[in-house]
C-alpha cells in the first residue's frame, strides 16, 4: 500500500514538474516575442548566430542528407522490385526527403550541434555570473542572448532543410540511376509527378517549427542552469534530449494537421 502511494506520489510530482517546465518555456517564448519587436535589434548578434547555426552546420547536414537519400533509394529499390515498380524509387525518395526526413533529420542534427551549444554557452554564462552581469548593466539577457539564437534557429533550420532535401534527392539519384540502373528520365519524371510544391513548403514550415523548438529549449535549459560545470553538462544533455523528443512528437502532430 505504502509503496503504491509512494510511486503515485512520485509520478504525480514528475507530471507536475513537466507541466511546470512547459509553462516556463512558453513564458520564455512570449518574452522572446515581446523583445523581438522592440528595437534596436542586435543585428550583429543575429548574424553571428545565423553563421553558427546555419553555415557551420552545412557539412553535417549535407553528409546526413546525402546518405539518407542514398539508403532510401537502395531500400526502396529492393521493395519496389518485387512489384516491378522500380521506377517509383525517385518519387518516394523525393517525397520522403521533402516531407519528413529532410526537416526531421536536419533539425535533429542542428539540435545536436547548435542546440547543445546554446545550452552549454548560456549555462556557462549563468554559472560564471555573466548573465547577472548583463542584468547589472541594465541589459536584458533575453534580448541580448536568446532572441538572436531563436531567430537564427527559426531561419536557418528551413534553409538547411532545403540543402538536405536537395542533396538527399541527389544521393537517391546517384544510387538509383548510376548504381541500380533505373532510367534517368523516368526517375526524374516520377519525382515531378509525385512531389507537389506543397510538400516542400510544408516540410519547410515543419523545419521552422523545429528550429524554434530546438533553440528555445536549448536557451531555456542553458539560461536556467544551476550548479557549476556539472550543471552545465546536465543542462546540455537535457536540452538535447528534450528538444529531440519534442521535435519527434510535434512532427506527428504537424504531419497530422498538414497532410
Amino acid at each position: 500500500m505504502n509503496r503504491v502511494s509512494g510511486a503515485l506520489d512520485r509520478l504525480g510530482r514528475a507530471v507536475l514538474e513537466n507541466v511546470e517546465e512547459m509553462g516556463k518555456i512558453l513564458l520564455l517564448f512570449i518574452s522572446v516575442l515581446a523583445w523581438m519587436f522592440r528595437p534596436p535589434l542586435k543585428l550583429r548578434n543575429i548574424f553571428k548566430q545565423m553563421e553558427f547555426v546555419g553555415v557551420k552546420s552545412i557539412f553535417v547536414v549535407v553528409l546526413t542528407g546525402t546518405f539518407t537519400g542514398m539508403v532510401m533509394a537502395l531500400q526502396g529499390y529492393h521493395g519496389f522490385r518485387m512489384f516491378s515498380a522500380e521506377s517509383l524509387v525517385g518519387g518516394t525518395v523525393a517525397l520522403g526527403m521533402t516531407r519528413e526526413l529532410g526537416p526531421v533529420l536536419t533539425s535533429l542534427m542542428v539540435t545536436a550541434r547548435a542546440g547543445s551549444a546554446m545550452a552549454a554557452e548560456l549555462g556557462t554564462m549563468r554559472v560564471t555570473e555573466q548573465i547577472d552581469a548583463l542584468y547589472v548593466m541594465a541589459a536584458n539577457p533575453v534580448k541580448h542572448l536568446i532572441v538572436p539564437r531563436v531567430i537564427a534557429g527559426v531561419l536557418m533550420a528551413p534553409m538547411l532543410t532545403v540543402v538536405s532535401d536537395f542533396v538527399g534527392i541527389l544521393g537517391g539519384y546517384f544510387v538509383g540511376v548510376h548504381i541500380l540502373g533505373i532510367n534517368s528520365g523516368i526517375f526524374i519524371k516520377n519525382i515531378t509527378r509525385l512531389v507537389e510544391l506543397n510538400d516542400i513548403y510544408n516540410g519547410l514550415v515543419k523545419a521552422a517549427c523545429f528550429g524554434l523548438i530546438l533553440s528555445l529549449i536549448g536557451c531555456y535549459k542553458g539560461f536556467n542552469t544551476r550548479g557549476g560545470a556539472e550543471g552545465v553538462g546536465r543542462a546540455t544533455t537535457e536540452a538535447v534530449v528534450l528538444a529531440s523528443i519534442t521535435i519527434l512528437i510535434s512532427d506527428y502532430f504537424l504531419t497530422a494537421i498538414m497532410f
Partner: protein
Amino acid sequence: MIKLIDLHKSFGKQKVLVGIDLQIEEAKTTVIIGRSGGGKSVLLKHIIGLLRPDRGQVLVDGTDIAKLGDRDLNEIRKKFGMLFQEAALFDSMTVGENVAFPLREHTRMKEKEIRETVADRLRSVGLTGVEEKMPSELSGGMRKRVGLARAIAMRPQIVLFDEPTTGLDPVMTEAINRLIIDTQKKFNFTCVVISHDIQSIFEIGDRIAMLYEGKIIEYGTPEELRASRNPVTVQFLSGSIDGPIRIM
C-alpha cells in the same frame, strides 16, 4: 545613499539573511566582512536588485528597489557598477568590447569616442594595449582589472566589489587595493566591498560591517572595529579557531 532595513532572505529552509539593518554612506568605502557562506554575496546582490528580499526594504536614494518593476529597476541600475568575484567578463567578446558594452548599451557615443573612453578606463586600471585580447587569454588579476574598468566605464555613483582580491598573489592584492582606493578618490563614488582579507579591510575601508548569522553584528570605523570587544569580531579578525564562531 543606500539603506537596508530589516532585510530577510531564505533559500528553501535555509535562512541566509535574518534582519539586516545597514546604512551605506555616500562617497565612502564600506567593507562587509563575514565568514564564507555567511551570505555576503547574497547581501550584495540585494543592493543591486539581482535578488529580491522575502521581507524588508532596500532603499537607493530613497527608492525601495525591492518593489520596482524591471524598467524602473534598470534606471536605478544605471547608477551602479559591479565587479563580480570572478570578474564575469563576457567571454565571447574581446576586452575592448567588454569595457565598451555599457557605453554601447546606454549612450549614443560615436565609435571613436567609445574607443577613447575604453582606452582611458583601461589605462586607469593599469592596462594598455589589451583591447583586442580575449578574456580567456588574461590572468586572474588582469581579468579583475578589466572587470573593474567595465564597472567604472559609465562613471557610476556606486560601485560594488565582490571579493576583489580573493585568490590573488600579495602583490596583485596590494595593486587592486590601491586601484580601489585611487579610483574611489578620483571619481568619488560610493564603494561597497566584500572581503576576507583582513589587511585589505583596514587598508581600504572607511566603514566596516561584520555580517554574522544573517545579521550585521558590528559596524564602525576600522579603529572602532579593532577596539571591539565583541567575541565574534575579535575571533574573526584574529583568525583564531577558538571562540564563538562554530567551524562546522
